[in-house]
């Protein structure tokens, strides 16, 4: 990572959470602050084989459920196919919707999964399942994807957030809640909901304190803390100091949200919409070291006028996603950044009387780009009408495991809640190895 990638200006970004913990193997779990009952040291930090580079994840969450037939798995010419044609891509034999001409030229950087059967066609249940990979147990709340990635790829000493979620539309926000589950609040998302003023909440410097005073107070606190710690080496002091440093760092991250300094050609590439601007912010964040950013684009729930809705929203997705891929590639970040598009489900092949498509979790698609994915791979197949999966059927668990592996996280890892080992995915769940390089 080049120095220019570090918005918060700290070389400490180069210190990974795992290596940091590796050097502190004797330190107790209390160092991890709010991780609660989790014994995060049980399998953490010491396994160098798990270190696979500074991967990042951007999830473009297509809230409400985008139609696979109008995006990644078109079926032109059949009654369920709708009016749009398919177009060839830069991967021979692979066609996608004509609404995605830009992505058609970038399939060599993409991989499609066309065989999701996730069995839950409800917004809340579907979102929970896709974001956690499994159902909660009565006594155990599982962390969502962002929290797991934050824990695995975040840095103990990071001065940027570990998990940021943009969800500025109101519809579906409650259905696709972020949750750190048993990992605790340390890995919870910073949720950004205000579409007019995007910034980290509650971190603004008080107007009554000058910047100089602010810095002087920090220096004084560091001085006193260091002097107190001399000869003591107390973990509590280190934790205390780390917490202050983190907050101080977060306060300096305001510039991540200010895209006015992005070159105009970059902004033009993404487009003028809110989704475009938030995706630029997401790129700035992963560039600055944020391990997981979800940009939630709501709302795709096209029960009426599916084709008009997708005429509006798919070209926007096409532009934003292709721009993000190009932008990451130009910055040399694509191999280290996994971009995922998915929602809680897809949409019915059957076209209803309002020319809409309804909820459909039986045979739908997601896309992966960059990270450890196999460029140009297409996994799974639906039947000629898109009604069911005929090859390579996978569920939410397999998708979750695949995303983890594509982000360089070993899906077989375990956490411990008390004495109980908790695997990252349920037993027996395997990633789609065909799409992992």
């Amino acid at each position: 990572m080049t120095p220019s990638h570090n918005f918060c200006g700290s070389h400490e970004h180069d210190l990974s959470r795992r290596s940091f913990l590796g050097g502190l193997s004797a330190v107790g779990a209390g160092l991890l602050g709010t991780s609660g009952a989790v014994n995060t040291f049980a399998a953490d930090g010491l396994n160098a084989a798990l270190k696979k580079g500074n991967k990042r994840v951007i999830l473009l969450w297509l809230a409400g459920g985008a139609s696979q037939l109008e995006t990644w798995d078109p079926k032109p010419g059949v009654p369920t196919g709708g009016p749009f044609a398919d177009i060839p891509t830069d991967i021979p034999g692979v066609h996608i919707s004509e609404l995605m001409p830009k992505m058609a030229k970038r399939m060599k950087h993409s991989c499609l999964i066309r065989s999701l059967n996730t069995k839950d066609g409800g917004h809340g249940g579907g979102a929970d399942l896709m974001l956690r990979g499994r159902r909660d147990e009565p006594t155990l709340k599982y962390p969502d994807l962002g929290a797991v990635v934050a824990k695995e790829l975040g840095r103990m000493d990071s001065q940027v957030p570990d998990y940021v979620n943009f969800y500025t539309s109101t519809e579906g926000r409650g259905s696709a809640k972020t949750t750190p589950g048993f990992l605790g609040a340390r890995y919870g998302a910073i949720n950004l909901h205000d579409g007019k003023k995007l910034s980290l909440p509650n971190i603004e410097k008080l107007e009554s304190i000058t910047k100089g005073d602010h810095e002087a107070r920090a220096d004084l606190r560091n001085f006193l803390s260091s002097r107190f710690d001399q000869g003591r080496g107390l973990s509590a002091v280190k934790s205390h100091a780390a917490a202050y440093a983190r907050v101080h760092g977060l306060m300096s991250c305001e510039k991540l949200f200010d895209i006015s300094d992005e070159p105009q050609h970059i902004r033009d590439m993404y487009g003028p919409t809110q989704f475009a601007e938030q995706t630029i912010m997401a790129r700035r964040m992963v560039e600055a070291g944020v391990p997981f950013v979800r940009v939630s684009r709501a709302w795709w729930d096209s029960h009426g006028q599916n084709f008009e809705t997708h005429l509006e929203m798919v070209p926007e997705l096409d532009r934003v996603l292709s721009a993000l891929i190009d932008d990451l590639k130009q910055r040399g970040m694509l191999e280290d950044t996994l971009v995922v598009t998915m929602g809680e489900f897809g949409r019915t092949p059957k076209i209803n009387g309002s020319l809409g498509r309804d909820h459909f979790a039986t045979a739908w698609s997601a896309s992966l780009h960059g990270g450890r994915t196999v460029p140009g791979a297409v996994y799974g197949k639906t039947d000629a009408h898109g009604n069911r999966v005929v090859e390579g059927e996978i569920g939410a668990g397999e998708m979750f495991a695949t995303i983890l592996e594509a982000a360089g996280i070993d899906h077989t890892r375990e956490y411990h809640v008390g004495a109980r080992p908790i695997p990252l995915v349920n037993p027996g769940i395997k990633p789609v190895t065909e799409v992992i390089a």
Partner: protein
Amino acid sequence: MDRPLNTNFVSKKELNHKHIAFSMARVPGSGHYYHGASDSGVYQVDHADEKPEAKRFTAEGHSSYILGTALNSRHLFTGGWDKNLIWWDRETGKAVRKQKAHGKWLRGVEVSPCGKQLATVSDDMVCRIWSTETGSLLAELKGHEAQTPNNYPSMLFCARYSPDGSRLATGDKVGHVVIWDTESFKPLQTLDAPGHYTWDPSARRHSIGGLRSIAFSPDGKQMYTGGIHKIGNVDHLGAKARLEIFDLETHESLAVLSGSDKCKGLVEHIEFESDGKWVVAGGGDHKGWLMFIDPSQPKIIREVPLPMHVHEFNLNEVGNQIFTVGHEKSVRLDLQV
């Protein structure tokens, strides 16, 4: 003698078909019509048959939904989301000309009252005028913005000639109407009916609606525009049907008419009874309806539910039969005297 204001149409013949019928054109003086369908086919139905049914008229031709169907004495014209305009010989059913008419999805095809001009509208936001005699492009009418104010693609949904053929109106997604001179092809006036367009900036961040239908009054002094009222939940066609009436001399909006709770969804088509005594509008959400309007008041005087979303209909010359086409069904309604 004045015709009585009788709109007591009742459903007489219901035809089921597997396709969605989006557009239609009736042979004058008959119950024989053609409709363009979701399976790329053109079908014909003749209610003079003992058992009317939708029969495939054409073989190959289009490769997507056919949203525009029109005819003159020699040809049938169809346009679709494959961007193509096809000229069919009505006698043989053979395609005599096929041309890529637009750069984006073709939404409508209209023939002028004299039968010599053909207008096509598309999401490239251009209305093209063609000679039905030579097939040549006569004019490109550009008066609609490509983007909505929210930076999303706009759509040019409809076009309609005035009864005397001197003017052509085009209407788009945000409710903008341009009225064109059909000789000079210059714009004569513009109107705006933004009440047909719903943009949700906060909850769902997409739009729905748009100006879907236009009709001039027989005297050419008024224009009816059809669409849907503002919608709270843009995922559905859950708002009441909406008609906005304009005075073309003063450019003023004269009235906004609303369907009842039983008439929700889009107004897809509007027709005046030949002497202008009443107006009929058709459309729907999941289901469909026809609404009858007394233009002298103006107010909706009757609503007739139908089993399917009505995409287009045609009122016969004597005003006693209405042929509707729509979602997997077609229905003929007869006037009860």
